[in-house]
């Protein structure tokens, strides 16, 4: 079994198509929608966690690409600017996934990209603009 967090970019003409149900039915993938929005240009942006067998995952991603849905890994959209982080810990209590966490022994903050679901709760909370999410 594989697990992947990806960002899907739907072109306008696909917004009303049942794409995700195909991923579930035809490729046997478990789909967890973490975020979804329609951009002002009526394109769709989805953050998904996909779980499934390697073959299904590869075929599913190929299907998405063939119908014109662009995919990229979530990691590319989330940036922790370490140079701007002062390790104040203001973000720690709001991060639901503990992607932003603090080592209590020395009070050093770290960001674990693979845990981040791009919920953006840290954005208004960080006084130093250390978090950037291009979603």
């Amino acid at each position, binding site marked *: 079994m594989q697990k992947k967090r990806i960002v899907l970019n739907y072109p306008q003409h696909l917004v009303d198509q049942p794409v995700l149900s195909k991923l579930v039915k035809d490729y046997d993938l478990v789909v967890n929608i973490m975020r979804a929005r329609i951009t002002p240009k009526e394109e769709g942006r989805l953050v998904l966690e996909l779980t499934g067998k390697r073959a299904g995952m590869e075929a599913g991603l190929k299907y998405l690409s063939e119908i014109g849905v662009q995919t990229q890994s979530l990691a590319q959209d989330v940036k922790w600017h370490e140079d701007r982080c002062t390790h104040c810990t203001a973000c720690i209590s709001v991060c639901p996934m503990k992607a932003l966490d603090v080592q209590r022994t020395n009070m050093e903050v770290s960001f674990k990209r693979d845990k981040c679901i791009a919920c953006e709760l840290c954005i208004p*909370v960080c006084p130093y603009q250390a978090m950037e999410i291009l979603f």
Partner: protein
Amino acid sequence: MAKTIEEINDKIKKGKAVVLTAEEIIGYAAEKGAKKAAQEVDVVTTGTFGPMCSSGAYFNVGHTKPRIKLGGGKTYLNDVPVYTGLAAVDFFLGATAMPDDDPRNRIYPGKFAYGGAYVIEELVAGKDVRLTATAYGTDCYPRKTLETYISLKDMNEAVLFNIRNAYQNYNVAVNLSDRMIYTYMGVLQPKMGNANYCNAGQLSPLMNDPFYKTIGIGTRIFLGGGIGYVVGNGTQHNPDVKRTEGGIPKVTAGTLAVKGDLKMMSPKWLRGTSFTGYGVTLTVGIGVPIPVLNEEILRYTTVRDEEILAQVVDYSDSYPQCNPGSLGEANYRQLKSGRITVQGKEIPTAGLSSYLKAREVAQTLKEWIEAGKFFLTRPVELLPSVDSGVVLKTLKERPIKKI
């Protein structure tokens, strides 16, 4: 045996001074005993790195040709207004100042992405900023407009001058209301969803000299990565408050006013800071060296996080309405653990003052002293202490008679 500042400086000069940070002294004194530690240790270094709104800087930018009198006109650095009620080419930039066209909280909560503190950070980083001004023109200062790039090295003087920094203790902020609130203590979740604190605890300068027995006017300090001086007590300095047996204030108490040459400072230790829905502020790194003159002073420097209590205050009603009242107390060990219990409810905590960076300030100051680059000063006058009669007043409004 008691030591003097002069004896300690002599040891620093010879490279023989024993310097420990306010964290290191705790274990050292516990092992050796206070008496022996007081004999062996010469200086304890402290540190803090947190948002401090009452900060700013004054500048002299040099005379233009022909001359302009900025005083009485309008002057901006990167569109941030500065205070010009001074002579021709002097002005003061406040950390919380923001561009005239910033929407503030008209679109709530405002982002406050830029302001005086960011201008200070950029200047200290060596960057050019835009100096623009309009003036009314006089016979001796005929010019009426000015637009130029300027950097710190172009200026005659650039001085960080903060009228209230390094608060001795601070509130722990919570929100009892049922909506999210945006404060200078950060974003507070409804119904006590989180608690934010803002103090370096056992590393904090005034926690290590709670009665101001060594700190006063002229104390040389680490300020913004350079060297600065305490110029007196900060505004709202309020020494006569409830204290623990060890003398640590249980509420906000002492403050410092500080100054230093901005040209010697670093953007690492002066950071523009934005609190959503509240405004812009400057995060300042400050470290004060405590000379271990005797055993009593040594004992003060061994203060530990668990011995420092802070009050939990509701920022949805009690604080804005200026009503006294604490929901409970928490010590800094609990606050740093990530959870406190207030009125039976367990709440996640988060800091606004960086303990990691506070430690780095104390360590840097220690290294400066060990390297013989930083000497201690004897204050001209100590800060007002508990017996000074200082009382913190709220404003008693008196209606102005309408004719």
